[in-house]
């Protein structure tokens, strides 16, 4: 098992190199660079520069070098001293900006994942065991509704509900009076009051998807002979189901981490903008629009890394859960 993990970690290195090249290439793809977008903004307010000035500025930002040189410098900075480069727009080191946002992003993502699990597991089991019953139809209906409603609509609705009926401030993770304060019990309670909206919004689609997956998987497993064996042993119905087929059908739940983690972090951009959350999504969007290349590149790189870590985590958990995988 340990050698397997080490082996997987080594295999991550070439993948990471590939991801870094691709992410750097992506941010170079749109025509122009950060300077062009700055100049365009300047031109709007009638400030014009001579070609000489522009060339000087370009050299200042290091944008006159060939793309490969820029890439090598950027990567060397990351590998040698953890320096992800400098954000042109914010005038601050990229790493500072990202770490600031990563905490809230990760905690919201993990909370959403827990929400997804907590809701979809019981409903999925119920749906599979009582297939085509009224309860199953209702769960299916809400499941599809959850999949179909765009996140931002749900976000707006929930914001309205929490404002109108619970009298809370709209958007963000904290009420205005707590925003600048250090962490305290009161602030934590305030956080809990706010955090449920994004968690529900972000988790709904994933919940609906997992319910369907669990229902389909468990339906297959319920007809396997080993379930009959368990019943023939004299086990009560619920024990027979929970201990045997559910255990086998759980695999997609764990592998969900692999795809849910990056999706939660990048896919919630629109929700985060609507809800004004201090997460990574809006920052990434802004940096892409402004062609703030090091910030955007570092974000994409980190996202790639999170995906790899998520996959590794889910593979390790799968191996722990399912001996068949462990022994192969």
């Amino acid at each position, binding site marked *: 098992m340990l050698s397997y993990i080490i*082996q997987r970690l080594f295999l991550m290195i070439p993948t990471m190199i590939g991801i870094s090249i691709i992410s750097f290439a992506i941010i170079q793809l749109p025509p122009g660079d950060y300077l062009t977008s700055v100049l365009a903004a300047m031109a709007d307010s009638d400030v014009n520069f001579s070609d000489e000035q522009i060339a000087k500025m370009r050299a200042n930002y290091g944008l006159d070098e060939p793309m490969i040189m820029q890439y090598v410098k950027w990567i060397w900075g990351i590998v040698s001293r953890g320096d992800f480069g400098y954000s042109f727009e914010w005038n601050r080191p990229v790493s500072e900006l990202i770490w600031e946002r990563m905490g809230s992003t990760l905690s919201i993502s993990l909370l959403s994942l827990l929400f997804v699990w907590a809701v979809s597991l019981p409903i999925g089991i119920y749906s599979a065991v009582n297939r085509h019953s009224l309860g199953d139809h209702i769960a299916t209906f809400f499941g599809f509704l959850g999949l179909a409603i765009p996140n931002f609509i749900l976000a707006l609705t929930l914001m309205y509900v929490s404002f109108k009926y619970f009298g809370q401030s709209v958007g963000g993770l904290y009420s205005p009076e707590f925003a600048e304060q250090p962490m305290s019990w009161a602030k934590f309670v305030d956080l809990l009051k706010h955090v449920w909206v994004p968690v529900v919004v972000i988790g709904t689609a994933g919940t609906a998807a997992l319910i369907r997956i669990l229902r389909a998987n468990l339906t297959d497993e319920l007809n*396997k*002979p*080993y379930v*009959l*064996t*368990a*019943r*023939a*042993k*004299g*086990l*009560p*119905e619920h024990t027979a189901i929970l*201990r*045997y087929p559910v*255990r*086998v059908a759980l695999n997609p739940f764990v592998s969900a981490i692999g795809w849910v983690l990056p999706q939660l972090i990048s896919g919630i951009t629109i929700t985060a903008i609507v809800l004004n959350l201090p997460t990574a999504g809006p920052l990434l969007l802004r940096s892409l629009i402004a062609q703030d290349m090091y910030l955007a590149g570092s974000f994409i790189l980190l996202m790639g890394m999170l995906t790899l870590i998520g996959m590794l985590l889910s593979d390790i958990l799968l191996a722990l*859960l*399912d*001996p*068949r995988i462990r*022994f192969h």
Partner: protein
Amino acid sequence: MTDTYIHPIKDTDATPVLTVKNLSVDFHLRTHILHAVRKVSFALHKGKTMALVGESGSGKSVTTRAIMRLLDKEARQTSGEITLHGDDGDIRITDLDPKGKAIRQIRGRRIALIFQEPMSSLSPVHTIGSQIGEALRLHRGLSKREAMDETVKLLEQVEIKDPAAMAKRYTFEFSGGMRQRAMIAMALACDPDVLIADEPTTALDVTTQAEVMDLLKRLQEHRGMALLLITHDLGLVAEVADEVAVMRFGRLVERGPIDDIFHNPQTAYAKKLLASTMRLERPSELRDRRDRTSDPAVLSVRGLCKSFGVTNWRGQEIHAVRAVKDASFDLYPGESLGIVGESGSGKTTLGRMILRVIEPTAGEIGYRETDGRVSDVAAMDKPELAKFHRDVRLIFQDPFASLNPRMTIKQIIAEPLVVNGVMQGVELEARVGELLELVGMDRGAMERYPHAFSGGQRQRFSIARSLALNPRIIIADEATSALDVSIRAQILDLLIELQKKLNLSFLFIAHDISVVRYFCDRVLVMHHGRIVEQGDAETVCTAPKEPYTKALLSAVPNPDPRDKRMVHRTKFVAEEV
């Protein structure tokens, strides 16, 4: 034929443990109601074995599920009563709530169940020990540790080596026979009064089957259990049963002591069932038994080897499994050569290597073309191989999985012709029609889909497909083992007729020795990847020379209760290889 023919039972002093009276079960399907079991009555006696026989779909399994109150949602029990007799009074099982506590007290403790698929009847994600221990803790109230000790004892009783270590293993680390032993250990955990074994050995090799049945009989005698054995194998019934009940279309057709059923059957169906079993006990009368070994061989295999390497993550070979070792044999034109062996003996690998689906590690396969030229299949390049594949075709085991359900019969049979660009249009249709008639099917089947046909009919389509390109050799890998006995003989007869008509050579891979004897001219016996004996089929099957072949043959159940072969079999102890 509405009533059951019941042979009189001579000794009536045995006390019944379980009685089934007038049991009927209906299945409410979407379009109609299926009467799966109709008015079935029988009784199980202490220490006695009752065999329930019949072809697939005759309602055998549904009957056992009704006894355990484990029927599917769609099933309704419409009449009848099942009573469990015990020292503390009788319990009417049919009155119990299928999800209630009372029936759970009976399941696993007084009535236990073993069933067919040892691969899937145990959970893949729990250890063997935890699955057996669960029953002990449930019914005997043992603690975790006591249950573990008891489990080890049980595994020892079912003759699993190193039981303490094996209890901690998972099912996929066990072979089929060992899983079935573990399953038996689980069923016996609480010393049940009745043991229901639903096709317990169907998925096992003959030698493993013999061992498992031996074990079951011994444990039954020791504990005085009643055994209800469900099977379609009359040979097995003759070896172990005391009483037989024959089922067909949900009805009990005939019931009586074993000797009466086998030597004095009264109903037409029982006679037919016995006849089709007995027919497979000797060589087919359709065959002209000419010696062809003096003709030039169409296929001569020399020194063929295959090892499957296990590599570590850097691609280095750690150790190799030698699946086939130094196989040499000849196949003559118009001849059927049988390859028999247990699972894992390398017979399927050998067949696939000849087609080069699996690349041989060493050796040569000489193929004599129609013009007399001999070329080595092992050295052929792609275009040559494509041509070779037109001459050598394959028939698969499972008639349900080997036909694409989304294609019509015409498309399925025509596919090899279309893929090879041989013909199209009207010509193609005429050829498909011709092939269908060749395998005894109506041309009208062309536009229909496979699901409309039974297993035997589907296997005919597979055969038609394999004949489409006028092959010279057909490799049939367990082509009849998924079929019921009566249909098995029909398909074999069809193959023999086709062979005579088209001068085909068959390479017939099977684990069922009676089928090989019925169908083949010569036979190879494989064991651990090595050909241990080859020769004339009749000679090998009646007077084998090698100890392994002797052991294998003696493990084959004999469908005659007066001559129990399996019980007195010779055992083969393999020398380490």
